[in-house]
């Protein structure tokens, strides 16, 4: 058993132990106003949670997926830049040019800007 594995066991144990301490020591007297959802000043309006949200957040997540993958795919090149030298580097540049074309297309389609998101074809 190495140290890192021990850390992986110990940290969750610590988290659950502190939670258990709270269960043992703290009082638990829930009533209706305590357990209802938080609201500023007036009683809870039902039907406002788990509703639709703007698709912008979803678009950002999808774009992140692609770009993060592409940056992580460059890590092997970064580690072996000396071995692959000019040829490997030029291949990397070609890879990056494709990425940049995609990036320009994405900015041009207005996927990023939140303000005019409802009119994506606005020129």
């Amino acid at each position, binding site marked *: 058993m*190495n*140290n*890192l*594995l*021990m*850390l*992986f066991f*110990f*940290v*969750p144990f*610590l*988290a*659950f132990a*502190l*939670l258990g*301490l*709270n*269960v043992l*020591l*703290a*009082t*638990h*007297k*829930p009533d209706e106003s*305590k*357990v*209802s*959802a*938080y609201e*500023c000043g007036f009683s809870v309006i039902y039907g406002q*949670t*788990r509703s639709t*949200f703007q698709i912008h*957040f979803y678009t*950002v*997540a999808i*774009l*992140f997926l692609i*770009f*993060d993958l592409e*940056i*992580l795919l*460059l*890590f092997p090149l*970064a*580690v072996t*830049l*000396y071995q692959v030298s*000019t040829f490997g*580097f030029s291949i*990397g*540049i070609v890879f*990056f040019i494709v*990425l*940049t074309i995609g*990036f320009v297309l994405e*900015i041009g389609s207005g996927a*990023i*800007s*939140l303000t005019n998101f409802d009119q994506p074809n606005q020129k």
Partner: protein
Amino acid sequence: MIKKHTQIKMNNNLTITIINILLNLIDVLCIVLPVLLSVAFMTIIERKQLAAHQRRVGPNIVGYYGLLQPFADALKLILKETIIPSQSNKVLFFLAPISTLIFSLLGWGIIPFGQGLALSDFSLGILYTLALSSLGVYGVLLAGWSANSKYAFLGSLRSTAAMISYELILSSAILIIILLTGSLNYNTIIEIQQSVWFIIPLLPVFIFYFIAILAETSRTPFDLQEAESELVAGFFTEHSSVPFVYFFLGEYSSIVLFSCITAILFLGGYNLPEVFVNNSIINLQSIILGLKTCIFCFFFVWFRATLPRLRYDQLIELCWLNLLPVCVAFIILIPSILVSFDLVPF
């Protein structure tokens, strides 16, 4: 006779295993307890420093100079009632803060505090850090979803979008450093900086990197998750007592962790070029790393005291339209310089 002999041997093996496990546990405690203490002191540093920026005194009642304030706060929060909202998803409601704490504490497993002074001298240390900082998003997302409150939900959506966007800047800034070191191991990165700290040749990259870690730890000016004027407390609106402590601990632990990683990546970690030859009894390397970490912790609080908060659309556009293109340009520029002048340093 033979049976007895094997039994003794088995007992010996068992004893050795138990001793090994205990030694491992002591090693882990040597990292985790100081980390928790430093997180506690980070909160009091923040309050004291904010007070100093605003020409106040700050907390100074509990203990000498207010030093025991974080422990009093922690004890109070542990003794408070945990309120579980009736509409919430109970399991995820508790799993979210726990996962936040776990992922921010696990990052300390590979930090070298001195030469060979790490829990694990992992050859893929950078990837481990990046993976854990990506996983940190899940705590935020689950907390907002499980609490079933509109404030928590909106806070978690915004926070998630901001965190994953700035993750790109973070990983591309780190990629540039990897180009100069050729290794994903923290020790190698520190040793290569013996001659020059990376903050000198890579100052623009450092600025992007620091903006990215400010957003990654959701600090001002990017703390949209807890835009108090709109969203009460962001994604942990519904969390109280110990689950709240976990979010708090996770946030401050990741601040200290990222300060430490910044010190390692840009300021040469535990090395101080040519000044100290480490043959003293006291291990100066850890102290040097600690001092460098303190510089960046100071920066975090300083920015909070100085800068106003960005709007959400400004935040996303700053990342995708301004920072990311420049980062991509640097990712092409720096290897081009290295290859064309045959300067690849490893």
